[in-house]
């Protein structure tokens, strides 16, 4: 059972990690908790659903092409939405008190959630069953489904790509510089607005991919998943050290594993209490998260 729970945990954890990246990148660059990020993830899931059941993508294309088109188009659509949200609700507040930006983010979150409810209805929506090939593998005593492999492969590829992009390219260096200090970055010739826009393309894009993968995995989606998964993903970002990209990946996977082990060995009803307890203990003894660096106190 241990290995099986580990695989389940890694699958859920990979979804958390993809969503957590959006939180951590926005926080790293803007020091803002983007409460609307979970709802962007949820909208990605709904957009994917609409594309899959539409006649154009769903029935005209072969399955593999339909899946790729769904993931790519949802990611692009949500990235556009992310940029719009930043422009409308966060940019005017960049210089003001941080709490006002938090409240603005909450407003956006309520807006997006209700927009989704009005467009797709208040009931659960189900991804079409034919979208996932019914493949299973047995390794020893462990069963692994097609979706678990797909989620792990896609998310690891995306995370590795993002890591290389941020660490090894000039644009990546500009992102890191902006995260350290906006004004100095601007003096170095970096267009900070452009970098922030880029962050709001990458984060929501990854979130939308996670949303489609989650929809395919659990089949059912609801307009409130943005809150529940958003909270978990945010916890994952804190667990790994917020503002730290590898931290979000490690935090997400770790959170997924802890949750599934907690569900398997303690009890399913108490697993979230277990997860938050570990988070609080970690923050008491290591307030910067697992991989976070200690930031000097400003006097």
């Amino acid at each position: 059972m241990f290995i099986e729970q580990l695989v389940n945990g890694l699958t859920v954890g990979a979804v958390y990690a993809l969503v957590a990246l959006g939180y951590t990148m926005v926080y790293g660059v803007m020091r803002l908790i983007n409460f609307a990020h979970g709802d962007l993830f949820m909208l990605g899931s709904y957009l994917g659903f609409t594309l899959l059941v539409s006649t154009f993508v769903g029935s005209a294309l072969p399955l593999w092409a339909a899946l790729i088109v769904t993931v790519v188009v949802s990611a692009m659509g949500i990235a556009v939405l992310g940029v719009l949200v930043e422009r409308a609700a966060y940019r005017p507040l960049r210089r003001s008190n941080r709490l006002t930006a938090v409240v603005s983010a909450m407003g956006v979150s309520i807006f997006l959630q209700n927009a989704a409810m009005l467009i797709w209805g208040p009931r659960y929506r189900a991804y079409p069953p034919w979208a996932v090939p019914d493949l299973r593998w047995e390794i020893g005593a462990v069963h692994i489904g097609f979706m678990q492999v797909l989620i792990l492969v896609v998310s690891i590829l995306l995370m590795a790509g993002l890591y290389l992009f941020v660490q090894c390219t000039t644009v990546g260096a500009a992102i890191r510089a902006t995260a350290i200090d906006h004004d100095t970055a601007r003096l170095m010739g970096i267009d900070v607005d452009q970098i922030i826009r880029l962050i709001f393309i990458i984060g929501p894009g990854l979130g939308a991919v996670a949303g489609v993968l989650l929809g395919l995995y659990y089949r059912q989606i609801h307009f409130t998943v943005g809150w529940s998964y958003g909270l978990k993903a945010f916890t994952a970002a804190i667990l790994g050290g917020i503002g730290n990209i590898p931290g979000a990946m490690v935090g997400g996977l770790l959170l997924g594993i802890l949750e599934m082990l907690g569900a398997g060995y303690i009890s399913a009803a108490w697993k979230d209490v277990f997860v938050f307890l570990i988070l609080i203990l970690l923050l008491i003894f290591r307030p910067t998260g697992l991989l976070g660096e200690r930031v000097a106190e400003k006097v």
Partner: protein
Amino acid sequence: MALLRLGPGPAPGRRRSVSGVSGVSGVSGLVGRYSAWAVGAVAVAAMVFPMVVSDYWIDVAVFWGIYVLLGLSLNIIVGEVGLFDMGHMAFFAIGSYTTAILSGRFGISLWLLLPLSGIVAGLAGYVLARPIIHLRGDYLLIVTIGLNEMIRISLLNNPWGLTGGPNGIIMLDQFRIFGLVIQKPMHFYYLVWACVAASMFALVRLQRSRIGRAWNCIREDEVAAEAMGIDVRSAKLLAFTLGAGLAGATGTIFAAKLVVISPESFTFMESVILFCIVVLGGMGSIPGVVLGSAAMLVLPEILRNFAQYRMLFFGAAMALMMIFRPQGLWPSKRWTTKLQEGESE
């Protein structure tokens, strides 16, 4: 930053703010500026209000009052001291459940449970905050969110058969005064708003006391506060304990009003609404809390004609409000004076 409320010429209270001890704020500021007549008029209007409107609107006003009490309790923590507490519903839940359990099992009078729930929730606040009070800003925020979720899920899981799980507990007892049972919306209206008036009076006094000034000093600059000899840790713990206690006492009224107490009243979403009440009203501003909770609770009721679109408008309005009036609906004068000085330097 443009300040709408302070025109040209020396603003009231500015001379005092130079000496570091800022001007008066809150209700007393209102009294000073618009004379006691305005307060009297508001009080009379509040007394007459339930006699001229339907029970539905009295109920809306009752829940408004409950959220004003909760907002006041969170304002101590978020507004006065600047601690980010986004899990305040946890203490409200502890108060409500303490009331429902003790009243159901031991038949203790609700008048006794009102302070008792406050003490239990305050103790819980002290015990839970003690290990985490040193955390800063966003870290404290996520830990309080975690506490909120832990307590809600624990209530849901019905430990030792105490909380009744997802169905909750039914309250059988009610408040009684000289044989009058407080049951009708109108009775609750007077009970709740009397509590609001009493709390506001006490909190304004507290705000202007040595403790209140120490809290504001910590909010503005923690390091400077420590250098001035303020015991930052105890001051923060005191704020957390008091805020939790007031929320817990409010829980008794809430339990009596709702009759059925279940975990779904204490979700993270509700904590976020409370947080928004404090920031929307204006951090650290006591009249701001009243306006902020009106905006968060009464406005959606008025918008009910738009039925399903109301929350959509509401979300957009929250974002717009923060963009065009970031200092809140009724900013505390201490707060604006500080901003203005920063600008003139």
